[in-house]
């Protein structure tokens, strides 16, 4: 796991206890819900958290790492203050979502998966947000922005920068 470079610092691992408590009775098939709850708590899945989960569930860490890297929801690195998820669904595609993504990439200076150097934004893509009627769409944090045009992007980003 040496390839993961996450900021090291004292993590409060006791926050995992209530999660283990909740899922104790659902021993079968509870690995994914535990990982989801842990990520909700820490914002991402730091190595020490994965190690603790491995210890407590008696599963080899290789298996846990396999699950974490299989699903796109799980993150091994922390994200910026705001997370932008640009929808790449079919409806968005035919309404020029590629232009929205290009504009986001060039105005933020990052590629999907990356975080801006000022830690303000993380840019991600998502297969479909199911808000196809408003295509092209992106989500910033939990707010959806629809009927986007490249020139609207700067405005929206500015709004979040000031937040």
């Amino acid at each position: 796991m040496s390839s993961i470079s996450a900021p090291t610092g004292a993590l409060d691992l006791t926050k995992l206890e209530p999660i283990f408590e909740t899922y104790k009775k659902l021993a079968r098939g509870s690995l994914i819900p535990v990982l989801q709850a842990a990520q909700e708590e820490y914002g991402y899945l730091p190595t020490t958290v994965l190690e603790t989960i491995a210890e407590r569930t008696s599963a080899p860490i290789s298996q846990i790492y396999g699950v974490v890297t299989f699903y796109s929801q799980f993150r091994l690195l922390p994200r910026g203050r705001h997370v932008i998820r640009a929808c790449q669904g079919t409806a968005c595609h035919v309404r020029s979502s590629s232009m929205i993504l290009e504009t986001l990439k060039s105005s933020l200076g990052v590629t999907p998966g990356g975080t801006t150097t000022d830690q303000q934004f993380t840019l991600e893509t998502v297969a479909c947000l199911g808000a196809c009627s408003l295509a092209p769409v992106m989500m910033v944090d939990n707010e959806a922005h629809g009927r986007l045009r490249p020139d609207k992007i700067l405005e929206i980003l500015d709004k979040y920068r000031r937040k």
Partner: protein
Amino acid sequence: MNHNIEDLPRLANAQELEALKNRVLPRLAIRKNPQAQPYNDITHHIMICCDTGCASSGAKDIVEAFQKELTSRNMEKSVEVVVIGCHGFCEMGPLLVVYPDDFYYIRLRPDDVSDIIDETIINHRPVPKLLYHDRETLRPIVRYNEIGFYAKQNRILLANCGHINPEDVFEYIAYDGYKALAKALSQKDDTAGLLEEVKKSGLRGRGGGGFPTGRKWELCRQAPGDTKYIICNADEGDPGAFMDRSLMEGDPHRLLEGMIIGGLIIGAQEGYIYVRAEYPTAVKRLTNALAQAEAMGFLGENILGTDFSFHIHIKEGAGAFVCGEETALMRSIEGQRGMPTARPPFPAISGLWGQPTNNNNVETWANVPGIILRGGDWFASFGTEKSKGTKVFALTGKIRNTGLAEVSMGMTMREIIYDIGGGVQNNKKFKAVQIGGPSGGCLPESMIDRPVDYDSLIEAGAMMGSGGLVVVDEDTCMVALAQFFLTFTRDESCGKCTPCREGTTRMLNILTNITKGKGKAGDIELLEELARNIKLSALCGLGQTSPNPILSTLTHFRDEYKAHIYEKRCPAHHCVDLIAYWIDPDRCVGCGACKKKCPVQAIDGSPKKPHAIDVSRCVKCGACFGACRKNQAIFKK
């Protein structure tokens, strides 16, 4: 009305259910009959759609504005604001219906709220500027079922969506909710007879394959073993499809009821709903519905006082398209990497944790209560010879009326796109409709007059899939569309089998080269050869169908491929490497409009002097092209 779970009554039998229904009906009477007596002095119901689509266009602000305005006018006790699920006409959101007047208002803004209260609530008059206007006659339409979008639909599955509060189990019960369950339980000693009813309905799997549901259930029912599971596949991953989300958000109890009846017929004790984590509202509504159903005795031990017990668990997916494949989905529920396994053994024999398992999608399960309550013959009275009932389609892309439409099987694609969907946006020319997502294909103009059902679509080289319809116009490049789908399947391939892992990557490389102007003679033939081999050798449905978008566009739009390869030209002016923008200095008046719109500061020039585009920075987004229309100094080639 919102209930505390502890206050819900536990129902001991079907009579108590009927009695409860009769107690709730007067509360909802003004929605059905304008002359009905107000209940508890509530004179109006304002039903506001807060489904994901409407919420992102601002529906929650409308709800807040109403609550604030009604409180300030001391009217909050006589007007009930009801949050509903999807009404289908997402293009027009945020939208609402006011009862008892039955007025339908669209594209609302918070400042419209006081007009609605002044005119409609106080004086029972419509607010003309908020009504839908017919596109041709320009006449305002007051009631929603007179709008063309709804007139041709047959909403038997979506009957409650947009008409009940999805968080209030009493409203579901008032609209005959859980009555099918009570009926099924009254015949629980003859589950074979219930199965016969499902078989008679002719219901086929709505998730894509179209396998007859009754036969599928029978296989699992007959499988040896005492522990059996049923699964609801709510991992609606097809980009461009959102009917399952709308159903779960708008009428969650219908899905639960369908699954409980399924559990009874199949002989299962537990059910799982595997739902995408990208659908937070659906998860919330389902969780709430589950708690209500358990409290009232529709779920859990001794359902409605009988000896039948059944439990449902909700599992959130973690973002992997391949988990829509049933064997992969089961591995994911078990907490493993979601990778498909070879069949046989089929899930009906050895599925979840090695036990007999039956898996259907949301739309299939939700059709079950109607079939049990009204009979298989009733369901089979809709549709075509081999495809019975209705299908919900998600209309998206370059279509005027985006949204959800439920129609009887057998309607032509032209009727769906033009009569319901209102035709192509911005008066552009129709090019094709893509159906079935990344596993499907496209139908060109010449094929849209055929009746739509499972078999006619397969014949046409497409498939029903989950029912996402994406309309594309003359500005859409079909090579880029195929490339788009291949990018998706390449990214979502789990990597277990070589044909899918390497084959999709290889096909995508070729397509990408073609769209970049680097295509060469022989590429088309190589694509076709790869496609044939992948179809034959991939492990699961995702891999086997991944070449479909290429094969289908090659069949109908081969000329576009050839133009890219041999003439280095994109006929739709879409592929960025084959187009360029430039400003004609003789025409440019230096107004600066383009410069202001450019998101990457690629345009330079002083006021009133001709401007120029710095091609090294230009991302070809076309914002300047749109900004300049008036002077027509910017060209695309």
